[in-house]
């Protein structure tokens, strides 16, 4: 690997490599309805992480035997483009991608009224175009927007964000370097309305006190992302409204 890892991830002023404070999110850009061929779609840029999500359905299930008589099935494919990382990634689904597909699906499942449309399938495609840490969280955030854009009835939007420990400090929204060199990473997803957690993982070591701090920091981060999600969903329609009504 040609990437040179810095000695310190947090400088004397307490700022991180990209100049963020420990509890600061990366700049976030969300866009809804970016693909015309999908039923619903969305795009996210979280720092250098760039992800596109597309949703199809509900539609008839193929192969047939997968259909459930009492609810829709949710299928998810998380995939990294070959050019999304420094060294070309094989486009074939890896063990990691299959696991993340499952994790993302399970994080979104409780938000959808699957029981409304029995014997159908909803497909989600999460395509990572550029990866710089936090792709599973950004993937959940953007997939939830794509679901809403597809007109699928939902209890709430799901927003996700990671917290972790870097150079002994608890930080929010880790980048790739911070994730690799840091001590711990806690990906987290929630539905803010019901305050229910739909994803919680941990990699690394944290004391119970540190974990609680990271957990609370992630909740705060999620709330910020949540309001941006809502704004992004409305933006498309508000723009048209303003243009024609003046």
């Amino acid at each position, binding site marked *: 690997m040609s990437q040179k890892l810095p000695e310190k991830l947090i400088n004397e002023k307490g700022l991180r490599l990209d100049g963020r404070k420990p509890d600061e999110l990366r700049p976030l850009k969300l866009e809804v309805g970016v693909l015309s061929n999908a*039923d*619903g779609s969305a795009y996210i840029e979280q720092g250098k992480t760039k992800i596109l999500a597309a949703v199809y*359905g*509900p*539609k*008839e299930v193929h192969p047939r035997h997968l259909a459930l*008589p009492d609810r829709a099935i949710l299928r998810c494919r998380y995939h990294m483009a070959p050019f999304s990382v420094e060294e070309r990634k094989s486009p074939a689904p890896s063990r990691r991608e299959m696991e993340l597909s499952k994790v993302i699906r399970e994080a979104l499942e409780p938000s959808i*009224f699957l029981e409304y*449309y*029995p*014997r*159908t399938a909803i497909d989600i495609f999460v395509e990572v175009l550029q990866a710089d840490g936090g792709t599973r969280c950004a993937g959940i955030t953007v997939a939830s927007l794509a679901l*809403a*854009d*597809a*007109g*699928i*009835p*939902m*209890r*709430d*939007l799901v927003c996700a964000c990671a917290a972790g420990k870097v150079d002994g400090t608890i930080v929010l929204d880790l980048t790739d370097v911070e994730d690799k060199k840091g001590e711990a990473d806690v990906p987290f997803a929630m*539905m*803010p*309305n*019901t305050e229910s957690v739909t994803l919680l993982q941990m990699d690394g070591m944290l004391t119970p006190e540190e974990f609680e701090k990271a957990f609370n920091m992630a909740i705060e981060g999620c709330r910020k992302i949540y309001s941006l*999600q*809502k704004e992004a*969903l*409305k933006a498309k*329609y*508000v723009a*048209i*409204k303003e243009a*024609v*009504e003046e």
Partner: protein
Amino acid sequence: MLPTFFEKREIVVPGDLLAEGDYIAGENTFKEGKRIYASRVGLVDYVNKKVQVVALRAFYVPRVGDTVIGKIIEVGVSGWIVDINSPYTALLRASDVLERGFNPRKDDLTAIYDVGDMIIAKIAAYDRTQNPLLTVNERGLGKITRGQIVQITPTKIPRVIGRKGSMISVIKKETGCNIVLGQNGLILVSGRSIENERLAVMAIRKIEDEAHTSGLTDRITEMLRKEKEKGVRKDESKTA
């Protein structure tokens, strides 16, 4: 009155808290305890005690009695399978079309409807355990032989109709086209000339894009008149 949290016709997204207290949860909303939330992106509406959301994007869920426009995708032994732009494909029975007993050895179903044909039909029966059943046994139903088909989001069909049919009658009057609305979001436009059909299609597309704005009927009328004038001028320059 108990609190509501949005203005009428304001845009809401899934998870938005719409009202709290003694309200009834209408379309595209759900109730949790005493609170009512939106479940789709749309425009909120408070009607007396009922809270509902008119969805800006949704798919078609069959309802008995709806007129729909569909495409034959498969010819089976005793009927056709029809794509009605919904999560569920519909079935049209041969006995429904033939109005008599049907003999699979003698009757050739492809002679009546073949794969790719478009039909106007009505939903005869549907429950969630079984795919919807269609019927073409009514005036105005059956195979489509001419015209153009436009597809829009099914929830915007009422907007194309307008209040008491005001919008649809404007389009019909200005373009002279005959328009059949399928509740599943497909619209058949057939007029005397392609030019007229193109105008009507343009108007429908505009309605879809601007469905959530007010004063739309006036803007559509204006647009159609302008476009017609343009067309007339073009014709004049051709003859001159």
